[in-house]
């Protein structure tokens, strides 16, 4: 079809759509949420992408007023299934029935007109527009060619009240917090009369308070008869919020269960397809000599302000020292001064009793320091390089991988194949550019590269951030295994549960200093949490006002 005919056709469509929209508005469905969608079924949905079968005969159903969790590992096909439901992808096979009648959803517009709304993981908001403008976008105005933002604002107010979604309709979206932006997304869907709301990982970016608020709203919505599909891989949340859970694995349904009848471990097992160790086996290991020692270390952050103020730490062989703290309190700089990518202004860093303060990054690497960086996409790997090139990145100068100025590609290939297998890196080949790998597989690759060098000291910064259960479990197992091998491990994580379950000792950082070191056997989350906020109970209130010393530059 020529562009011209498309253009003409779209003008005609505009006309009919305008009338349809006006009728829709007159009926009042644009505002009052009188649910018209009582059941929704997806039957035998198949969706293929080049080289991937994303959905392979998926059955899924939602009832009115139900909060239904859709669970699965990264790449299990959750988002694809929901994009099919929202009309963004058309399925290769299968059908969708609303109230028992088959429907075809060709575009989000179709889905919206059937009462389906979706809140994407990455918000679909126009930052330069106001909340009300974002809500009104794409809708016909009650004043035809003139915007009726005052009326929209009024209705947004009503909806905010009804569902406890606090947000100022006249504010520009870019000024809003992430939690508020999410509320705008929900308001958009409610305003359009969504009876079924799909939420793609809605808690991933929220603070605990925002999560509580969101859950209250979602419960209110479900009481009013709205159906909610909640995509997640955080098991506690799923059990807390939803009545029913459908688990996808490798594009197929692994099971659909009532959440009051299952445990986290059951769900995890369904997701991964095998038993998952939610609790990490932490055998006693005899603590060895001091491997890494920091003595009075001072360093500046990226903007030239002090970000480490006299750090004293020791890490022993066969020990995991966990670093807890709110992001931006010097953790990143701590990892960098040990790895050698940041210079220190005072103090010493000692490796196996040798002062390595003045050593180059390369010399530290040769001496047995391994680093899993926080920004794995930027600092951990070269996106444009292949899997094998990334695996050899730190060893390319050694036999058997090179001799003189020549690379031994045979040895490199053999090493790459061995690591890919041993660390279960899912990649089409060792020649694949790693930019196309999933986050979990990229992290496995970095882990493989660092650990295979048998380091004396391993710095693991946010090693499981953004990874799914399976990959997280794998990374945890590898770290614990390193501990058993006698490596001294510095584990830096913002996930307090992770720090508490993996570490032998926990050091808490606040504003560039270590405010306390506790033993895991005696530590409680409460106690550590208080220290993270800057000390005792009294200081906790003051902390929220104090500026965070150095926001991460990433």
């Amino acid at each position, binding site marked *: 079809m020529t562009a011209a005919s498309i253009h003409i056709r779209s003008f005609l469509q*505009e006309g009919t759509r305008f009338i349809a929209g006006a009728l829709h508005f007159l009926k009042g469905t644009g505002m009052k949420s009188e649910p018209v969608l009582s059941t929704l079924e997806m039957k035998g949905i198949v969706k293929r992408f080049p080289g991937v079968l994303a959905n392979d005969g998926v059955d899924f159903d939602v009832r009115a007023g139900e909060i239904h969790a859709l669970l699965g590992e990264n790449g299990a096909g959750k988002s694809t299934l929901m994009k099919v439901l929202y009309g*963004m992808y058309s399925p290769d096979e299968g059908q969708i029935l609303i109230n028992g009648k088959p429907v075809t959803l060709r575009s*989000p517009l179709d889905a919206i007109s059937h009462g389906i709304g979706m809140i994407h993981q990455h*918000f*679909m908001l126009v930052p330069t527009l106001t909340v009300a403008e974002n809500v009104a976008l*794409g809708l016909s*105005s009650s004043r035809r060619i003139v*915007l009726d933002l005052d009326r929209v604002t009024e209705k947004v107010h009503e909806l905010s009240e009804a569902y406890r979604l606090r947000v100022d309709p006249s504010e520009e979206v870019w000024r809003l917090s992430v939690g508020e932006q999410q509320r705008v997304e929900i308001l958009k869907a409610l305003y359009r009369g969504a009876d079924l709301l799909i939420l793609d990982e809605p808690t991933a970016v929220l603070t605990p308070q925002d999560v509580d608020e969101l859950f209250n709203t979602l419960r209110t919505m479900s009481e009013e008869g709205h159906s909610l599909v909640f995509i997640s891989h955080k098991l506690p949340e799923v059990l807390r919020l939803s009545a029913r859970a459908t688990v996808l694995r490798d594009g197929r349904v692994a099971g659909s269960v009532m959440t009051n009848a299952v445990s986290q471990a059951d769900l995890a097992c369904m997701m991964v397809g095998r038993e998952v160790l939610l609790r990490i086996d932490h055998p006693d290991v005899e603590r060895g000599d001091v491997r890494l020692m920091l003595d009075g270390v001072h360093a500046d952050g990226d903007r030239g302000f002090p970000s480490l103020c006299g750090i004293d730490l020791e890490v022993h062989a066969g020990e995991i020292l966990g670093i807890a703290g709110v992001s931006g309190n010097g953790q990143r700089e701590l990892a960098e001064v040990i790895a050698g990518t940041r210079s220190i202004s005072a103090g010493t860093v000692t490796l196996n009793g040798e002062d390595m303060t003045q050593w180059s990054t390369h010399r530290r690497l040769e001496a047995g320091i391994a680093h899993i960086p926080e920004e794995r996409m930027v600092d951990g790997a070269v996106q444009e390089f292949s899997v094998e090139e990334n695996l050899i990145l730190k060893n390319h100068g050694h036999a058997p991988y090179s001799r003189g100025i020549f690379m031994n590609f045979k040895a490199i290939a053999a090493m790459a194949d061995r690591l890919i297998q041993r660390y279960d890196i899912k990649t089409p080949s060792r020649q694949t550019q790693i930019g196309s790998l999933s986050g979990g597989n990229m992290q496995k690759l970095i882990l493989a590269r660092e650990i295979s060098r048998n380091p004396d000291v391993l710095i693991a910064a946010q090693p499981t951030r953004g990874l799914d259960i399976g990959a997280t479990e794998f990374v945890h197992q590898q770290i614990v295994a390193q501990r058993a091998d006698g490596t001294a491990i510095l584990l830096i994580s913002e996930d307090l549960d992770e720090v508490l379950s993996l570490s032998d000792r926990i050091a808490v950082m606040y504003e560039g200093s270590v405010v306390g070191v506790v033993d895991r056997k005696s530590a409680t989350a409460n106690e550590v949490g208080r220290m993270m906020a800057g000390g005792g109970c009294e200081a906790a209130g003051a902390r929220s006002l104090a500026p965070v010393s150095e926001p991460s530059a990433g």
Partner: protein
Amino acid sequence: MTAVIVGIVSSSLRLVTPYLFAAIGETLSQASGVLNLGLDGIMLIGAYAAFYVGITTGSLALGVIAAGLAGGLLGFIMAFVSVSMRADQGVSGIALYLFCLGLSEMLFNQTLGGVRTISGLQPINIPGLSKIPVLGPILFHQNILVYIAFALVPIAWFVLNKTPFGLKIRAVGENPHAADSLGVRVRRVRYQTVTLGGVFAGIAGASLSIALLNLFQPNLTNGMGFIAVALVYFGGWRPVRVLLGALLFSTVNALQIWAQVEGIGISPYLTLMLPYVITIVVLATMKRRNSQAPSALTKPFERGQ
């Protein structure tokens, strides 16, 4: 002194008209995310179409309509190439400009055969207002295209800020994926703005060939369209500021002509630089508050994951 100011102001109002048409149209298409660098070429073809139709039919109104149609067609072609074919906007705009430049030369040779003149659009007095001392003759004794050009500014402002269509334009230029998720037809909006921008550019050409200069010759626009594109950036994608920028540019231009005519002892090469120098100085010192380019400017839209 009054006469001097009257002269400079009326001169700048005449000069500003083609810039205003072209820059307001370009503001719309850039607000939706399409940079149309072919503006100067579309103006040339518009200038030719208005002149040719005007001289052959004797109707200047038909000439203006022909310029708008020709401009709209070229805008549509630009939209096809940059929106549907997702070609690089900078390159396709320059290609369109070169195509129009060559086409207008050919049409000039084939159909006009030489420089000819036409009796152009005559000034229209606005009853009452044109009698106001000093201001009247300047502001309310202009040809119809000058009035339309100035009327376009509040209209464009209103459309962009107060209508559902304008909301779509801004959303499509800022975050087309968000707009798409709400059922806004991203490509269609871009087709509409770029085509409309073409219509205005065509009329900008008409305002040169049958209102200001009353002749057509190859390369008549002499790069005005590129200045118009710069004015859109200057104006921070806001019609009123685009108007201010265009007025500043044309006033300084009128001023430098006046300075030369009055024999003020400055080298003409310094005064000739003045409009550009002032533009650069203003751009450099202007507060950049909220005058960010549309985030999706020059980025073709592709429905993705």
